[in-house]
């Protein structure tokens, strides 16, 4: 059954390639800021996460006299995952809830998030599973936003 072996290797290969950490994950959408902001939150919720908070970076800056375009941070997570991390993987606490920065660039909007997999650690496979899920979901959010017009 050589072909099965080849298939497995291919599958493993594509799996490994897809879980390599890539530093920052970024996407540009042609949607303007208010639309992209709505779409992002709607998308996050449709993947069964809660948006725990939206931090308005721009407001503080403008109030202090600095000019900036619209800039927000969207925090999201699930009750279960954050409980598991608090309980068993406290080294991840400073990074949760996970977040996506979203800011306007003229008519477009940019999204930035850190790749969760860079905190993967073979010693904690259960935590890695969560990190991988986040990475994949963030990748999906970004693809959805890229394709939204």
């Amino acid at each position, binding site marked *: 059954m050589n*072909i*099965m072996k080849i*298939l497995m290797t*291919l*599958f493993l290969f*594509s799996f490994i*390639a897809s879980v*390599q950490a890539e*530093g*920052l994950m*970024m*996407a*540009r959408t*042609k949607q303007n800021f208010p639309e992209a902001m709505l779409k992002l939150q709607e998308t996050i919720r449709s993947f069964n996460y*809660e*948006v*725990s*908070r939206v*931090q308005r*970076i721009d407001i*503080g*800056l403008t*109030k*202090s006299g*600095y*000019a*900036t*375009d619209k*800039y927000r*941070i969207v*925090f999201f*997570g*699930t*009750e279960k995952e*954050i*409980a598991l991390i*608090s309980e068993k993987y*406290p*080294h991840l*606490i*400073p*990074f*949760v*809830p996970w*977040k*996506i*920065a979203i*800011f*306007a*660039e*003229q008519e*477009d909007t*940019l*999204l*930035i998030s*850190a*790749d969760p997999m*860079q*905190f993967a650690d073979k010693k904690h496979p259960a935590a890695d599973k969560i990190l991988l899920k986040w990475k994949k979901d963030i990748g999906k959010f970004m693809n959805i936003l*890229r394709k939204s017009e």
Partner: protein
Amino acid sequence: MTLSAKNHLLFSLILIFSSPLLSAKPDGEQLYTTHCSACHGADGHGGVGVPLALPDFQYGVTNDYLKKSIRLGRPGRIMPAFTQLKDDEVNAIVKYIRSWAPGKPFKYSNKKINGNVAHGKQLYQKNCASCHGSKGEGGKGTGVTFSRPRDLPIIAPALNNPGFLSSAPDLMIKTVLMNGREGTPMLSYLKLGLSEKDIDDVVSYVRSFENNIVATKSNEKLEPIISYESPNSLEKTVESIERAAIGKNFRIIRKQYLNQGLVKAGQENKKQVMIYFCNFNLLNRALAIDPRIGLFLPCRITALEKDGKVLVMASNPLYMSRLFNNEKLTKLCQEMYDVYSDIVEESTF
């Protein structure tokens, strides 16, 4: 299972698992959208990255320059090195970028220009350093000024960058200086009064930056977090974090429980407190260097009680700074690291 059903299954499996490997031709537009458009704009008008669609750029650079730039990136200047892409994928991206070209690009030989480096240095300091930096390190920030006001509509790229120097032949650099790039702050130095000989001297000086390239920072292992144990109660620890932050000229902008917003109101874990603080001057400076840094601001320190201990934790800004491939952020992140360490130490004293 009959043999043919088995074959059928196998065949579908092959299709599913290998489709990305077998697909006949990589789609340049799609690859560009995934890997480049966030920084260079959907149609190459620029953003965090410089514009790629301008006619003078398209005429003035070779496909080889584009390919090498993609492969090598700009170490320390935000643009990542795309080592994971396959050759035909890089070619497809270049082909797509060329779809914006107004005509055929110039061709250059790799002929070396032997100008007078010392004279070139003088001319460089007088004419170029104000934008490209006295060591060729590039302007403050990068790319096009969209999300905030900055010094110039397009920030001058780094000329001392190994990614740039390895991609650009002397004659290409010369062409930029002779013609300028219309629609950008980069003007024609022939029109500004330099002779062709002067320009050759400047090119040789720019080339000499190659001798000063320092290997990028070591792979010294950094911990992702800063964490200390506090001898005091959680409440007292939170108070001293706030006091320490204010003492360092930060403003407390928010205090909340870790799982607030993820659980029903009233059911939060009160033993885990996040303290957010900010200094808007610092934030503004950081965003001018790299608009993406907002992802790690405002600053946050978390205090929590776990197994009878009170812990104070923060993400390590030096670890985070590595994600950005931006040398100028590293200095700022060192500043942030000192602030975090001081606050964490002070509050756990």
